[in-house]
């Protein structure tokens, strides 16, 4: 007479070697032991033994060799209660010829009841998996990259022409925290290019208008409104909480202030400027790490601001409405590359886009060994020297 299912499992358990969780706990990080979780993916995502590799029982025969690597190692299998792992142990032993195979009694349930350490892997919720599915499909992003984006804190200086595309696409990409610094209100003349706002938000603070749009686009993003203009007294406190600074400001004093504070705090700045049909774009990242020498800062590129007659930022200027879209999305792309850690950033390079010519060229930006800001110990830059240079406000005032 053939046995019942339950009887069959009992028989198998009598034939395989079993090991108590207490003994498994002693060999958790033993290099001679491989602990294999044979449960289904959704069970594993709720928690597993630290260091265990996952090979669902359905893929056991085809994937176990890759997961274990060396058949001479001791292999300990576990499941939820000890039944599936016993069946899997028998397969490894009888069919695949593994020698040192054991099944953990009581499975993950008993392990957890005993209060032993568990490892709860970070996963995306089903709706996140859906929302970010096109990111998950590219190797360079994948789950790991998406989690980095979700953990990232990016600060946008300006919720205007460049800030609009940056905010929309970074929110859509799942950047977890987006800070927005702006003290302006939405004006009808903004809407030709500042697409994060709308006719219905004319007169509202730009931070508020953008926040509402982003809430609709991706409610998972935490939008932090800084309804202020950056100055030397606030810049360090605002920057401290962020990983990447996006500079899309319309004036030189703020650009130098952003640079000086970012160098001091070791934050990368993704910078763009636009005028007419042309854009400039670069990444200023003076951090030093294993892979990179520190890059140049904005003051290495332009040690001094131009005088007022050559600084069109002093007044209102014409710009093709789509140009900040192009430049802002190149910025957003650099932000994502920095956060995820892929590709070659525009570090030490200045890209120039000419919309009329449909041309993109670039020049090298060298670190200035005598740069007044990034060549000195960042901590030694006094607060009252942040963003300071002679009489710039007076220049602009004189230009009217």
């Amino acid at each position, binding site marked *: 007479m053939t046995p019942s299912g339950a009887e069959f499992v009992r028989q198998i358990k009598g034939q395989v070697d079993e090991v108590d969780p207490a003994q498994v706990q002693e060999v958790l990080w033993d290099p001679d032991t491989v602990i294999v979780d044979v449960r289904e993916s959704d069970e594993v995502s709720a928690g597993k033994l630290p260091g265990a590799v996952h090979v669902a029982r359905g893929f056991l025969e085809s994937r176990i060799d890759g997961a274990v690597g060396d058949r001479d190692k001791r292999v300990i299998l576990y499941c939820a209660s000890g039944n599936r792992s016993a069946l899997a142990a028998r397969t490894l032993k009888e069919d695949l010829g593994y020698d040192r195979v054991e099944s953990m009694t009581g499975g993950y349930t008993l392990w957890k009841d005993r209060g032993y350490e568990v490892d709860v892997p970070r996963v995306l919720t089903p709706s996140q998996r859906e929302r970010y599915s096109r990111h998950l499909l590219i190797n360079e992003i994948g789950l790991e990259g998406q989690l980095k984006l979700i953990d990232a804190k990016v600060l946008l200086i300006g919720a205007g022409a460049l800030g609009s595309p940056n905010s929309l696409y970074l929110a859509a990409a799942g950047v977890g925290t987006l800070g927005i610094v702006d003290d302006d209100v939405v004006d009808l003349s903004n809407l030709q290019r500042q697409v994060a706002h709308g006719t219905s938000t004319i007169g509202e603070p730009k931070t508020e208008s953008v926040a509402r749009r982003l809430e609709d686009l991706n409610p998972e993003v935490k939008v932090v409104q800084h309804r202020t203009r950056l100055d030397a007294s606030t810049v360090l406190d605002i920057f401290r909480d962020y990983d990447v600074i996006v500079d899309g*400001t319309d004036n030189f004093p703020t650009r130098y202030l952003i640079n000086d504070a970012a160098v001091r705090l070791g934050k990368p700045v993704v910078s763009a400027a636009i005028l007419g049909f042309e854009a400039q774009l670069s990444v200023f990242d003076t951090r030093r790490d294993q892979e990179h020498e520190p890059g140049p800062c904005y003051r290495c590129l332009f040690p001094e601001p131009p005088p007022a007659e050559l600084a069109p930022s002093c007044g209102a200027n014409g710009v093709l409405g789509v140009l900040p879209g192009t430049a802002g999305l190149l910025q957003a792309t650099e932000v994502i590359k920095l956060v995820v850690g892929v590709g070659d950033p525009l570090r030490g390079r200045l890209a120039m886009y000419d919309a009329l010519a449909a041309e993109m060229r670039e020049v090298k930006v060298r670190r200035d060994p005598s740069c007044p800001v990034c060549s000195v110990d960042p901590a030694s830059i006094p607060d009252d020297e942040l963003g300071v240079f002679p009489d710039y406000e007076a220049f602009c005032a004189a230009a009217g």
Partner: protein
Amino acid sequence: MANIRIPPVLRPSVGGERQVDADGATVREVLDALTTAHEELRGQLFGADGELNRFVNVYLNDEDVRVLGGLDTAVGPADTLQILPAMAGGAR
């Protein structure tokens, strides 16, 4: 002879041209020829000491002439000079 790329803020000084050609075997000679033809540019590119203003960068192809031989850097007929002043437009 070299091709010089003129940035938007300086174009009014060269009759709106985006690029102009000028003769010269060094960066200084080329820029001298340029500023002789377009006198307005001189004060925008050079300080009273005859050196390039610090707020203007000049690139020979993709390299800042300051890290090459400065104004004495040799310029060949196939070279491009890019004049690049800082730009700030964005938020408003």
